[in-house]
């Protein structure tokens, strides 16, 4: 066997032998419409520059989803657009079903990236300055939701990707691009990746999130993940967990937005830093601390300058940070779990909302 044949033997898959690994994303783009809340991705046929994949994958392919990101193609430069963005981050979610069982429900906070800029306007003309891209910032600079355990897409699995939004009119006609980052495996014969084998327990990445309205600035303790009756788009689950699952918290973020009547975001930031997050599991205190290292904020504030030429100015404030736990906080099945956020008197950001996001892994019984 000469050198060329030897090398080609490794480069191309042989029957019943090799697998070719390719790092390739799957992307799909849908235009949002006022009042339409649900968008389903990867159901239409591929089209140039719009989508490169229609599910399911073929029998000779397996795709590992390692990260997810989304992007509304709009430069957010007004407080109305930031308000719509806040709804996309805190009151919208991406739901992934595999074979009719929920695999992930993540808020927009986790995976939506956004473009924003300070803006100056003189009567009619609007100038955007210092345009930036923001999103859930990971330690390696990636913007989006990375998965500590990949989701495996086999050809014989039924996958559903549903984006639920509030249908805000600001995004009417705006394209939303969803990207699945990962690794595709090809063989010459049909195959599937069986990650369960004979296990009865399965691990999936998950985000427990809940969005709560800030009604006033009084000292208050907000219970989190306790009320099953709140709207479906405002939370992804409650405690206690069922008896067939446990949850390991690996990272945490508390996100605050722009109030209905915008105020200076710097004031909101300084006020929210003093809030305290409290976690108690089975009568043991597992976390009690302020939000210094996990507070995030996206807000805009408009002002009209009173000196000629009387410009209208919109200042944007964007800061994203996530606390990665050195020791994960494990919540057992059926445990007595109390999670709350407390604010002192004189708090600001009234009529805005805050979202507590706990990211980690659920271990659950398969059947």
């Amino acid at each position, binding site marked *: 066997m000469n050198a060329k044949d030897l090398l080609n033997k490794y480069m191309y898959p042989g029957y019943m032998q090799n697998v070719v*690994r390719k790092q390739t994303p799957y992307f799909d783009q849908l235009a949002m419409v006022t009042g339409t809340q649900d968008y389903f991705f990867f159901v239409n046929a591929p089209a140039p520059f719009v989508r490169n994949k229609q599910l399911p994958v073929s029998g000779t392919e397996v795709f590992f989803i390692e990260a997810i990101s989304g992007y509304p193609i709009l430069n957010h430069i007004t407080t109305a657009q930031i308000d719509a963005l806040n709804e996309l981050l805190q009151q919208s979610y991406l739901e992934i079903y595999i074979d009719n069982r929920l695999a992930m429900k993540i808020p927009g906070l986790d995976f939506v990236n956004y473009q924003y800029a300070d803006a100056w306007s003189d009567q009619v003309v609007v100038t955007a300055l210092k345009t930036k891209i923001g999103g859930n910032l990971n330690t390696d600079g990636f913007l989006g939701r990375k998965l500590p355990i990949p989701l495996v897409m086999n050809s014989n699995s039924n996958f559903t990707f549903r984006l639920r939004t509030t249908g805000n009119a600001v995004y009417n006609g705006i394209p939303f691009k969803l990207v699945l980052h990962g690794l595709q495996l090809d063989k010459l*014969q049909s195959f599937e990746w069986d990650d369960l084998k004979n296990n009865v327990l399965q691990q999936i990445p998950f985000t427990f999130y809940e969005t709560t309205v800030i009604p006033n600035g009084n000292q208050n303790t907000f219970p989190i993940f306790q009320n099953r009756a709140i709207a479906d788009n405002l939370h992804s689950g409650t405690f206690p967990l069922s008896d067939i699952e446990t949850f390991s918290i690996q990272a945490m973020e508390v996100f605050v937005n722009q109030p209905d009547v915008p105020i200076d975001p710097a004031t909101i930031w300084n006020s929210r830093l003093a809030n305290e997050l409290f976690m108690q599991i089975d009568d043991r205190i597992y976390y009690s601390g302020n939000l210094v290292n996990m507070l995030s904020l996206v807000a805009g504030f408009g002002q009209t300058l009173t000196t000629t030429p009387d410009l209208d100015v919109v200042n944007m404030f964007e800061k994203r940070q996530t606390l990665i736990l050195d020791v*994960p906080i494990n919540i057992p099945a059926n445990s007595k779990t109390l999670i709350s956020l407390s604010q002192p008197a004189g708090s600001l950001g009234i009529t805005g909302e805050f979202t507590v996001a706990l990211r980690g892994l659920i271990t659950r019984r398969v059947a």
Partner: protein
Amino acid sequence: MARRKSKTTARRRSSRESAKGFYTKVMIDVAGAGIATRLIPILVNSIYPLDPTLYTVVGAGGGYLAGRMLKRPLLSNASIALGVVEFVAPMLESIVGGGGSVSPAVLPAGVKTSVPVPIKKTGMVTTVDDFFTLNEYTNSPAVQSNSEFRNSY
């Protein structure tokens, strides 16, 4: 005379099997052959890269030699038998047919980790390893440590 014979016979029987019928020596030798056929190719490959088609041969041969050196003929024979099974099994599977997962005829399942080993090697292909047969991983329900999940956020 008759008494001595029955004592000897009784001693021989007790050394071969326990009261419940387990051949402990056989079990140990066959288990050792299984471990040898799986571990020896990995050890050799770490020193001298092997063609994947040779893994089975190296595993069986290594197990045979180990049995000879340890003076355990059962281990040697079991290694050869397991090597034959690993060689023939994929062909039989394709005859019996159907989809299902394709077991690699070479490297074993390896260590169970929460994240599959091949996923760590993302990005452009830089080594021949990227085209080797799948190392199958099993979804492990163990709690991940910080070193495992830190790069995921």
